[in-house]
């Protein structure tokens, strides 16, 4: 209860990433594309001496990605020792969850249903809690 969440906007919808998993929020500078990888991986970007794998959350959820990515915000998360930058439309404040994650009858739509741990109430209204592991694994985009 009262889990801290990073509020953000993904594919035009309110979403939240558990703040405990987020190392920092960065502005994406230059991205080195990696040919041959699934579309949701936009490439690599460097944060100090580390290379971050840039994940486009919109595409990972099965939506259209944005063409323009310069100066976009991204949340840096560590999954199994690998660092990822999760690109979001916008990143807001850190806020508290006002409820446990819960399901909504009928689901959230195919992509969201797979990637979200559920819906939580926040001060800004209902928000989908993103499951970081699922997003970076990239299985949703293929399934959707």
């Amino acid at each position, binding site marked *: 209860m009262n889990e801290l969440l990073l509020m953000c906007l993904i594919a035009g919808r309110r979403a939240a990433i558990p703040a405990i998993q987020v190392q920092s929020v960065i502005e994406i500078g230059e991205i080195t*594309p*990696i*040919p*041959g990888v699934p579309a949701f*991986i936009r490439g690599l970007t460097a944060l100090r*001496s*580390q290379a971050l794998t840039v994940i486009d959350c919109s595409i990972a959820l099965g939506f259209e990605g944005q063409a323009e990515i310069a100066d976009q915000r991204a949340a840096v998360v560590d999954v199994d020792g*690998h660092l990822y930058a999760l690109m979001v439309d916008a990143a807001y404040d850190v806020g508290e969850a006002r409820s446990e994650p819960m399901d909504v009858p009928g689901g959230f739509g195919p992509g969201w249903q797979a990637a979200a741990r559920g819906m939580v109430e926040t001060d800004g209204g209902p928000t989908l809690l993103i499951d970081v592991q699922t997003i*970076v*694994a990239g299985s949703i985009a293929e399934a959707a």
Partner: protein
Amino acid sequence: MDDLLADFVAETSEMLEASGGEIVAWEADPSDRARLDTIFRFVHTVKGNCGFFDFPRLEKLSHAAEDALAECRAGRREPDSTLVSAVLAIVDRISEMTDAIGAGEEFPAGGDDALIAALQSDETPGVVGEAPSIAPEQPAVGGVDKDAAPKAARNAVQRTIRLPTDLLDEVMKGVSDMVLARNDLARRLREAGEQPTIDGPFDRLSTILADVRTSITRMRMQRLEHLFTSFPRLVRDLSTELGKQVMVDLEGGEVELDREMVEMVRDPLTHIIRNAIDHGLEGPGERIKTGKREIGLLKFAARQSGNQITLAITDDGRGIDTDRLAAKAVAAGIYSQSEIDRMSERRKLYLIFEPGLSTAEKVSSVSGRGVGMDVVRSNIERVGGSIDVTSKPGEGTSFYLKLPLTLSIIAALTVGSGGQRYAIPRSYVEEIVFGSSDHVDFAEAGERRLVTFRGQRVPCLSLGEILGIEANEHVDWESRTLVLIRLATDDVFALAVDRVYDHEDVVVKPIAPAIMETRLYAGTTLLDDGKPMMLIDLPSIAQLRGLVTEMRSSSRVDEEEKVEDRKTTPIMLFTGLDGRQRAARLELVRRIDTISRDAIDIEGSRAQAVIDGAIFSLVGHEYGDLPEEKCRLLRLSDGECEIAYAVREVLDAANMEGEIVPSTVDPAIEGVTLIGNQPVPVIDGHTLFASHRAPRRVDHPMSCRLPADSDWARTILGPLVEAAGYRVSTEDSEEADVEIRLAESTAEISCPARRVIHLRPEPEVAVEDTSDSIYRYDREALLAALKQFRMGKTA
């Protein structure tokens, strides 16, 4: 061994430090079981280690203390203050001795028995009476050692510390960050133009940073010894289990390797050892029957060459039975019989790396459990290494492992494709050629691009096409640069890239699993400007594209011929003082030295160089002027004597693949060979050593006695006799092989030599002289006589 000893000293002092508090606490309360246990463990460990290192005194002391403490632990004896002080005295003594060992000093003998006697339980009154007398004795010993001990203690503390690897990694990461920040700063400084006040300190900063980086890298290094130490035990266990006798020979334990790398190769090596003992080495009976020593030999040899470690594991067993291997491959359906028939021996040998093959007749508990050499190979390749095998039936098998020094730093070639840079591990790169070059012909077979280079037809792939950024039909092959890749399996293909940038040592970081899934990349690395760059996974790409099997079926014949043709001779390329490239056979080159110009002495036709206090004949100086200050020398050796060859620059080692075209005009040149299409003269070792070899030093020179009373004999004759290979003696009493007598000398010699040379003062033979004398300045005759005697003896 020194390393282990240092470990022992460090460990002991560490334990001493840690148990120091315990000892004090135990003294306050002798009945405290926990403290007792700690001290017991300490003396127990010391005892164990001492036995291993053969320190009988330490072992005796710790053994006695352990016995006494064991009594207490078993409840058979109550620890009292007498016992406590006796044990403490022993602990102190152990500490002093360890310090002495650490400082490499001899510890004063004696006093041990008194300390041990003090441990005896107080039920024997006589000993108790003695006990107090120990105490005053103790300071006396300490007094002797007072000067040395504190110094040694400090040394031991400084010599080693233990650090968590995490901390090292963190420091290393920090340094990497610093390097990136420096590079960024360097770029900005360049843009800002020249600023002398800043550039100087900045250059210094760069140098320091480079040094720090090297040191940090070295921190992560571990001697191979640490890996080797576990082998004798493993071999012993296995050989006992299999009823074989095996001797282990370890060489090159001082070679250092990244700690992680050591761990990564442990399993593959263990597997190779198992195979060698189980399949390779025969049982004692069979060995005797084939005329071998009863005990099999398993030899490990490690060498460092540049950024690579070569580890050879050799057994002198029965060798790999390629026919059986081939039969198995056919039986397992991996190859057809006709395919096998076309294979060369070497190719058949490589079958050992095929998945699903095992030559073991029966599955023993040791090997042949389906985990085969294929797993070993893939494990070695995963860490960026390669494995090779040679085998001679009846003589043995050798596995050669090539490993990068570290897991994280690899030598890479940076190439461009589609406007982006990629790194290719340099170990795979055989050669780089331009598509526009005359030697390169492109051909098509169906959809497959082929390139013919040096009579070899190899498949050609475009990196852009592999990565999916361009289609094959749009590739302008002639404008590309071709990187010829030779995989560890000896499969060759050409990779077309837009351009080749540079050789770089790159720090490889792992990549996210989702990127790994593409099987195109092996890792990522950061460029100097902080941009990420992908490392291409060549073996995986070759597999994806079916290149590994494809080549085996289609152009095998081509390749096999090549394998057999490649009887290469390693040579060393250098530039002579005249600036021209020459080469020397690598076997001739013993080492490369740099000496100062002062150490070279040239006078007329005689030229000599002084290296490490020894005089060598110098050659190569006739080609041009010697450099002003430092001079590079190749030290050539014919196995007996050495010659220094002055060069301007040592270029590289290369393989002489083609033939040598003999040269008859210049005797100093053996012939001319082609290295990378450049003619390079190879120097003739025979001519060099024939004309410049120093007279071989005779181990036991014959002695020649000269008259002691003649200055002429001592100053003028002496050197001549020495140059002829004799030891000069003037002692009358000493027995000499040859003696030179002057006609005018009348002194009687007590102990005549076996042979005598008479010298006469005048060229003409005097009438009264009946002996076969030689004129004292007839150099030729004198030398001939000396030589004749020497030959007479050695013959």
